[in-house]
């Protein structure tokens, strides 16, 4: 595998179409491992990965840890509440101290946009961005691509609607960069207060009305309303949001008959997505979860595997 020449995975923006295809191919061949009785291969034996989560996470962190364990890497988990950040240590110092212990990779989730880029400049280890502020969540976008490819066969000409708080969503940004790169058409939708200025410059269409936005689409991606990130009031009440912007049955029926429903989780059922939609046959939300393990195995392998002298 000489095609992947990156030390870090910080952003979808840094990846070429070939890089993405390679990740998806490798993920596809590794996915089978997750279904085995004995889920262990020695590929990354002797490699150390630090999962450094400044923000709470269930899915992403478990997914990374599982991917690391299946590939036999030694993984160490640190969360903000149990680390020296609580004692006032700067991110720069924490990162350099961890790096001094010679890990091969640092997987970081952080509430500040650009934090992974910041530490990547300071450490020798590779850095994977597991979500930074409202900027990007590249591994989520890659597992979304993997799931779409699995269900739809490809990306060219595919029409995708992303609905919800686009302004504060790192998943939206990474998905937009990834889908546009692979040749899909993207429409974003949500209340005008949640559509950031200049989003059209990323090559997407804006359609505030979710019913219009999903009409004739192949893929519907719902986003979480990030109540914890809501510093300013962007909509009057949850009830009002749900009434006018939730993904509900009547809306989904306007999409293509074989359209799929995706959501990065965790869901606020009854707010941005109705339970009957989330649990319907069209929903691939749980496929996304298992595909996440496969995609992260592929990324780990491409970044630090296969380089054994």
């Amino acid at each position, binding site marked *: 595998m000489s095609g992947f020449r990156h030390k870090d995975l910080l952003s979808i923006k840094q990846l070429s179409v070939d890089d993405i295809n390679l990740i998806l191919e490798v993920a596809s061949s590794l996915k089978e491992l997750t279904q085995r009785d004995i889920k262990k291969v020695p590929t990354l034996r002797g490699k150390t990965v630090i999962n450094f989560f400044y923000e709470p996470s269930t899915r992403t962190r478990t997914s990374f840890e599982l991917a690391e364990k299946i590939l036999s890497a030694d993984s160490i988990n640190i969360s903000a509440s149990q680390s020296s950040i609580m004692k006032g240590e700067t991110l*720069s110092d924490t990162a350099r101290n961890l790096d001094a212990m010679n890990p091969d990779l640092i997987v970081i989730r952080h509430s*500040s946009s650009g934090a992974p880029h910041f530490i990547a400049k300071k450490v020798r280890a590779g850095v994977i961005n597991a979500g930074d502020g409202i900027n*990007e969540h590249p591994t989520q976008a890659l597992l979304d691509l993997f799931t779409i490819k699995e269900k739809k066969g490809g990306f060219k000409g595919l029409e995708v609607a992303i609905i919800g708080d686009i302004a504060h969503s790192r998943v939206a940004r990474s998905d937009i960069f990834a889908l546009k790169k692979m040749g899909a058409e993207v429409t974003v939708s949500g209340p005008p207060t949640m559509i*950031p*200025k*200049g*989003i059209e410059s990323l090559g997407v269409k804006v359609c505030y009305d979710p019913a219009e936005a999903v009409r004739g689409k192949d893929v519907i991606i719902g986003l979480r309303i990030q109540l914890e990130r809501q510093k300013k009031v962007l909509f009057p009440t949850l009830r009002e949001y749900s009434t006018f912007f939730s993904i509900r049955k009547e809306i989904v029926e306007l999409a293509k008959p074989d359209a799929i429903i995706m959501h990065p989780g965790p869901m606020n059922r009854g707010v941005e997505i109705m339970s009957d939609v989330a649990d319907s046959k069209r929903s691939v939300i749980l496929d996304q979860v298992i595909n996440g393990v496969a995609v992260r195995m592929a990324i780990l392998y491409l970044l630090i595997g296969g380089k054994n002298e």
Partner: protein
Amino acid sequence: MILIKGGTVVDPVRGKEEKRDIIIEGERIKDILPQGKIPKENVFQKIINAENMIICPGLVDMHVHLREPGHEYKEDIESGTLAAVAGGFTAVACMPNTDPPNDNSSVTSFILRQAEIKAHCRVYPIAAITVGRKGERLTEFGDLKKAGAVGVSDDGRSVLNSDLMRRALEYAKYHGLAVISHCEDPYLSEGGVMHEGEVATMLGLMGIPSESEEIMVARDILLSKLTKAPVHIAHVSTKGSVELIRRAKEEGIPVTAETAPHYFSLDHRAVIGYDTNAKVNPPLRTEEDVEEIKKGLKEGVIDVIATDHAPQSPLEKDVEFDKAEFGMIGLQTALPLTLNLVREGILSLPEAIKKLSYAPASILGIPWSNIEIGARADIVIIDPDYSYVLEERHIFSKSKNTPFLGKRLSGIVKFTIIEGKIIYEGFF
């Protein structure tokens, strides 16, 4: 006696530039002569060869943060004024957002006393408009003026209460204090870390809309109209602000304005890569804004170029982008960046120097001397074409927070002379 020979003397008041030799005796300019006319009998302690150089009167920066008292780890009056003279400035006006803030005459006196002991150039304190810069009640303008303050500003914040701002303008006019307004609606800018627009959207950073500045510019213009009292708009960064000020000046409202070199030299793309040195308030705007700022400078809508020199240490800057403090230093980069405007044909050399000297001195009402026989010898000698890559070791500020590090600049100060004494001699 000092002889400066072979250079081009810039007169920013009359808009002229002429080859002249200058003789300095003691604190004053003894003579200004056409080249080759130096009387043979004169004996000079020093002869400065200023061939191909610009000789101009001392520059004035009406907007700097010297950080003393309270934040001496970032900068102090000694280091800040050393950076000033290295940048060609013979006088600086320092903003009141120190700790404690300069909101009473004892802090003003402290600053002036410290300046007397250790400053390399003249220091003119700007006092706060409101006590604690909290926007609640006016400081004692009269007492502050008596102690040596030359203007008032709550720089870093707007005085949100429009009635209080109105009273400040009226009262400051009576005392002859300039009112310098930082224009920002904090509700619109809250949470923002860069200009709101496509670059912020691409980088996943929260934006500050141009309107956050323009709303307050419009308000202060209207208050100036109401009170007939002058107001000076600090660090203009947007196209809309330039348009508002242009219209106000056409109507005869007594408004003046400054911009900083970074607003005509950089746009919001400088933030790409999450460079915290490019994080500044107001934020770097779009290319369109940059063009309008240049147009405003050319037309005279923007009177002054001031640096908003804002030193920050690695404690404030070597952190996550959204946690980093705003601000960049500017005392040593202002001149080369302004000379770019001359090279681009936007300003003539005398116009550029005027915006860096005579104009701010007039707005603040502080003493300033042109290059004239008998005048106080405050003189800067500049090599306008000297080209170099800016490195940390060139910077005299305690803080090195500038996005121009590693960038090529043209124009360097060779000598700064204050009251006939060579205060700074360039090491290039």
